[in-house]
């Protein structure tokens, strides 16, 4: 993974000392809240319901064991012993005191971490495929480019005060595991003529109030030219993005107002005027960054380990974990291990300081000292020798981290919602817990098959509800929390925004409604391998709607639509 050089380290240390000074001036009253707020936000510090919240950057979701240990120290010393992984591959601490933040930022800087680009109208932390560098279907390692973009975008003067925040995701594999089509800019590494790699570029995707799937703006940009191409996109957006209306300020609104063809024309015209050589990544710099991500030589192992195979036969729970949470690695004899932070009944994405230390130790002992954070709020040990899988599993059981539910209905994405978030309409965590408990039987969950269930506490959609096969959105209906169900969303290559199925439900009624949706799918699926999403696309909304609200009558339908408009 990338290790800071003296320049990076110096920059982060300087930012830490600037922030210390800013905090002390605020506490002394030399800065008003109005003056201080943009400064704290540029350092990831929000004010939430109960306390300050510090959002720490985990660039493209890559962490070392030592960094996770440091996060454990922070959780224990300055929080309530917990951290919360987010859908941006970052980690949040929910119980932070302003007066402690300079020390926390220093503690982060010591291990090459910070909270920059986790807030504000800048290019946010670039996100990437959590299986980067180890996936069997990878064309090229996206981390190299994510790191180049980190360096290019950090405190870039032109991109620090944009109309709105800007999110970029990169995938270097055949399968999209980074939800690239729901980002302001989504990048797919592809092979061009003659085998050279470049980027397929998508623009204008996003969730929130006005969800859009990104559209292709360029089929192939040679990789050496991607930074100047991105800069051209940023320029057009910076020039024309709606600064007058926060709800219309994201690039998706601009792209859809202009149309993709006109937007493309403007970007290409801008690109032609840029001094590309000055912006593009020099070959030597690319090589320097790429070296950090070069695959470590791995000791050869047989593809299967007899003791692991024996355990698989004798221990059904282990076999299930192997089936669901362990993925093939590009090197035979190794595996990718998904660590679920979704034990039914627990808070999705939450991890205790003790658990962090367990995972850090596993990474150090068995995982080449590397970890990944997924946007589904789980962790990944990217490289584990197959012969160590049983040992890793036993250690995960000890730490209550061995839940086998990757991509199942209990692998719920949920935002912090009204339990913590200042913008929330409704709680999401309790809803996630209630639903997960209904499907806690692992056999039942596995029989349902792959099913993404995502929950957001408000229309900002941090919990990706639009992209859930089943999406749940918290709304405020005359002062009580209600939940709207959407069906058919997908974050993958077949990205789609879910359809609202009908009027919203109370918190009490919602888990039962989800059970009804799932039962309807199970009754009607053609075979066990027809996934929820495929079945929904075949069946459409109607059978689900009728199961939830009773047989369709034209007049009643009209009344329900009215109600939807009012929530």
């Amino acid at each position, binding site marked *: 993974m990338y290790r800071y050089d003296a320049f990076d380290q110096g920059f982060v240390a300087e930012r830490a000392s600037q922030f210390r000074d800013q905090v002390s001036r605020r506490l002394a009253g030399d800065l008003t*809240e109005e003056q201080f707020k943009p400064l704290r936000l540029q350092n990831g510090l929000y004010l939430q319901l109960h306390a300050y919240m510090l959002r720490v950057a985990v660039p493209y979701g890559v962490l070392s064991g030592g960094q996770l240990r440091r996060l454990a120290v922070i959780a224990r010393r300055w929080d309530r012993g917990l951290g919360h992984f987010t859908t941006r591959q970052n980690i949040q601490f929910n119980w*932070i005191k302003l*007066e402690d933040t300079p020390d926390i930022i220093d503690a982060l800087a010591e291990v090459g971490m910070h909270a920059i680009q986790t807030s504000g109208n800048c290019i946010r932390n670039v996100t990437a495929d959590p299986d980067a560098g180890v996936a069997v279907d990878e064309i090229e390692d996206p981390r190299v480019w994510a790191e180049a973009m980190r360096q290019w975008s950090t405190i870039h003067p032109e991109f620090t005060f944009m109309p709105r925040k800007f999110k970029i995701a990169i995938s270097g594999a055949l399968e999209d595991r980074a939800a690239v089509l729901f980002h302001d800019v989504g990048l797919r590494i592809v092979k061009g003529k003659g085998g050279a790699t470049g980027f397929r570029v998508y623009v204008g995707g996003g969730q929130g109030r006005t969800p859009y799937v990104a559209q292709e703006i360029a089929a192939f940009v040679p990789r050496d030219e991607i930074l100047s191409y991105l800069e051209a996109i940023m320029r057009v957006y910076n020039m024309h993005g709606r600064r007058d209306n926060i709800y219309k300020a994201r690039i998706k609104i601009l792209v859809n107002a202009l149309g993709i063809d006109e937007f493309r024309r403007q970007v290409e015209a801008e690109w032609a005027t840029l001094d590309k050589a000055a912006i593009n990544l020099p070959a030597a710099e690319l090589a320097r960054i790429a070296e950090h991500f070069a695959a470590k030589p791995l000791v050869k192992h047989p593809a299967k380990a007899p003791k692991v195979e024996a355990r698989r036969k004798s221990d059904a729970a282990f076999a299930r974990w192997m089936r669901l949470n362990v993925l093939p690695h590009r090197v035979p004899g190794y595996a990718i291990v998904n660590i679920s932070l979704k034990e039914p009944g627990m808070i999705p994405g939450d991890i205790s300081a003790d658990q962090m230390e367990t995972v850090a130790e596993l990474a150090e002992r068995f995982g080449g000292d590397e970890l990944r954070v997924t946007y589904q709020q789980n962790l990944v040990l990217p490289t584990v020798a197959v012969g160590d899988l049983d040992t890793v599993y036993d250690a995960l059981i000890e730490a209550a981290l061995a839940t086998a539910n990757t991509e199942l209905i209990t692998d719920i994405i949920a935002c912090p919602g009204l*339990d913590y978030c200042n913008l929330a309409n409704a709680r999401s965590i309790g809803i996630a817990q209630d639903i997960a408990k209904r499907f806690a039987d692992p056999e039942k969950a596995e029989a349902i098959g792959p099913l993404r269930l995502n929950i957001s506490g408000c229309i900002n959609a941090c919990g990706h509800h639009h992209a859930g096969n089943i999406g749940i959105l918290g709304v405020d209906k005359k002062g009580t929390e209600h939940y709207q169900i959407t069906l058919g969303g997908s974050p993958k290559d077949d990205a789609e925004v879910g359809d609202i199925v009908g009027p919203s439900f109370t918190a009490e009624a919602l888990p039962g409604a989800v059970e009804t949706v799932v039962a309807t799918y199970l009754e009607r699926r053609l075979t066990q391998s027809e996934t929820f999403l495929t079945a929904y696309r075949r069946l459409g909304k109607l059978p689900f709607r009728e199961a939830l609200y009773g047989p369709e009558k034209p007049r009643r339908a009209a009344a329900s639509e009215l109600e939807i408009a009012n929530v």
Partner: protein
Amino acid sequence: MPSIVTANDLRSGAVVYLTGAGGWVCDLPHATVVDGADALKGLEALALASVERNEVTAVYAFDVRLVEGLPEPVSVRERIRAAHAPTV
């Protein structure tokens, strides 16, 4: 409707409630409940002075109901804040 003035403590971020004496308390039942625009204005002036002294931030008033003489926030959000903890 009766209301209470709240804020977050500047240093800790903790939820606090204003008293008629101009101080801040953590426990909602110890907050001063006012009814009517004029009384609320008086409280808000006290809160503003505290903001100027850099004691608190994010000041606002919210509605409460009196249940057996004790204030109970009308909104779920304020009930969660008053508990100083998530509900999960």
